[in-house]
């Protein structure tokens, strides 16, 4: 075999670096949407590589629902310090206090959908013209249609049927005042690719991804962590289990799986044997068949 080819991880890395450099070249004020999850950590790592030896040129923006795992916030603050980057926080609690959004009611209430308003407000307030996200096309069927450069109108909305065609590596980020873009440099990565790459590059990730003892409750087929926001229902019982999380969202909706995987090697082995998608443990996607598409149209990540 010829030596002039890249293996799949190198090719994905090179593609992501290319896209991040295009973002920097085509936009005035781009930021990385940082959730503290592995995908946005990966994007941040790739951005660091793309501009080396320069410092990472993007600020990190966190939409804070107030329903965080404490571990996520610690991780975020340490990473910001290491990178010497700026942190922008959009607070859902503030949006609620200002009356911009109303808290959902009922036993399945979450702050998931409320993030849309906070995110769009923060984009407008900080005059952001491109928000770089860690969305992947393999995650969900609406995301399978996303472009690398995804246009949002001046209301922040996505129009999936009227997207700009994206050919070769010619990315069109032209936009009018008030509109913005979402950029998805790891669109072509799968969950397995992400883990293989994190392992290869030895990227540090929050401890929540590794198996650990935790107080949890069995609900909707997964282990929901005990937190100050959790209201026990009849028949539910808090137990101690060794769990880890495959994705990280709000502490109220992110279910863990029972696992012994406490190293990156063991996680990669476990993920490759998984028979459930990673979002299978996210109650926010289970509301309807087009739950993700509906949220995305309005401006969700």
């Amino acid at each position: 075999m010829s030596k002039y080819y890249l293996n799949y991880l190198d090719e994905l890395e090179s593609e992501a670096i290319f896209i991040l450099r295009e973002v920097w070249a085509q936009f005035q004020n781009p930021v990385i949407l940082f959730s503290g999850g592995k995908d946005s950590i990966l994007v941040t790592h790739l951005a660091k590589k793309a501009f080396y030896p320069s410092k990472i040129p993007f600020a990190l923006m966190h939409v804070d629902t107030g329903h965080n795992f404490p571990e996520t916030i610690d991780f975020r603050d340490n990473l910001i310090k290491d990178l010497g980057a700026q942190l922008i926080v959009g607070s859902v609690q503030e949006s609620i206090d200002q009356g911009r959004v109303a808290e959902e009611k009922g036993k399945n209430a979450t702050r998931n959908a409320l993030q849309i308003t906070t995110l769009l407000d923060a984009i407008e307030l900080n005059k952001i013209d491109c928000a770089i996200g860690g969305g992947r096309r393999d995650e969900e069927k609406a995301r399978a249609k996303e472009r690398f450069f995804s246009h949002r109108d001046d209301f922040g909305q996505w129009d999936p049927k009227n997207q700009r065609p994206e050919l070769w590596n010619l990315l069109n980020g032209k936009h009018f005042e008030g509109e913005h873009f979402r950029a998805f440099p790891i669109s072509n990565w799968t969950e397995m690719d992400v883990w293989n790459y994190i392992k290869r590059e030895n990227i540090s990730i929050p401890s929540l991804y590794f198996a650990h003892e935790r107080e949890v409750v069995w609900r909707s087929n997964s282990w929901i962590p005990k937190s100050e926001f959790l209201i026990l229902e009849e028949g539910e019982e808090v137990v101690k289990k060794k769990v880890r999380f495959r994705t990280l969202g709000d502490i109220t909706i992110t279910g863990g799986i029972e696992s012994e995987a406490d190293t990156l090697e063991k996680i990669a082995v476990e993920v490759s044997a998984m028979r459930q998608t990673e979002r299978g443990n996210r109650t926010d996607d289970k509301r309807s068949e087009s739950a993700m598409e509906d949220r995305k149209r309005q401006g969700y990540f």
Partner: protein
Amino acid sequence: MLDNNQLLRFTTAGSVDDGKSTLIGRLLYDSKSIFEDQLEAIENTSKKKGHEGVDLALFTDGLRDEREQGITIDVAYRYFTTPKRKFIIADTPGHIQYTRNMVTGASTANVATILIDARHGVIEQTKRHAFIASLLQIPHVIVCVNKMDLVDFSEDVFNKIVNQFESVSSKMLVKDVRFIPISALHGDNVVNRSENMPWYQGAPMLHTLETMHISSDINKVDARFPVQTILRPQREGFIDYRGYAGRVASGIFRPGDEVTVMPSGFNSKIKTIDTSNGQLEEAHAPMSISITLEDDIDISRGDMIVRSNNKPEATQDLEVMLCWLNNSPAKPRAKYTIKHTTNDQKAMIKEVVYKIDINSLDRINDDDSLNMNDICKVKLRTTKPLMIDSYRENRTTGSIILIDDSTNETVAAGMVV
């Protein structure tokens, strides 16, 4: 999965009737790339719709409108991995009104798969799909003759279709064509070898995709490096560092190479090739790197670093095969933004040389309107020279898009003749 495994991108074009969605569903299902919760969701939908068993086609449904109408509107990307390769499928609709989506999906593909219904043989749509594969210079084509179960797995039927296809494709530029008789519905020759067609000596589809030789498809001769951005860290240890960041479009670059910066024409030598993992001895497509030069030259985004003894053509007059992508037709003599590598200029469509009837593949000479899905040869004039190669030689430096400044939409895609 082994660390040296390659990535292969392939397109599928077809309509519901061809069994395209069933084929993709079958590939994912038999290669165990489908998760239990996905399968469960699809079993439920199949039951709701009154289908017998699991309708594999449902795996590829995306947007709500598509689910309601039962068609693919846009390009959807699917992923699966085998122990040998990682695959990206660009799944596109097959009808004539979605030519632009097929062109989009084909632009980055290593392999095109073309589906033929064994009962109908080569039809207009087949010709169109073969033409798009040749227009976009997809290096390999796999023709899947599907629904063999409905023609009694007949070798004669298969051979007749192979002959039909070859008589069509001989007039086009498709290089490597392979034919596989399959039944996507029952799984014959998709992942597993068919027991119903012992006369077929070739490999099943997945094995063909896994073993196809693709690393010689990249251009290793013409060294081209479009500059994306300049890295000037201005921090300790890198005070005088000035790196030109970009992705190698083609060819091979090494430190010490004599290079020319276009369009300025300044000559220099490559000092280092850098990545965040350290310096490289050589770089090739599609690596993202940064280059430092021996001399201090004024270089900016849109410039191209090339080997001094092998330069692209710098020209303001281009002949391109254009596919019109937008709802609004082209405006005669209007100016568009033209995007070529990392370079943006203005361009005007000077002349429509001919249009192609993509059903008959005949040339139409007396029609210079450009509507959505039209494919035509045009002459463009740009405000400043572009550094171009022909698309046949170089997919990266031979491709352009046009952007309408009044809407900012990407309205056309072009391949330099």
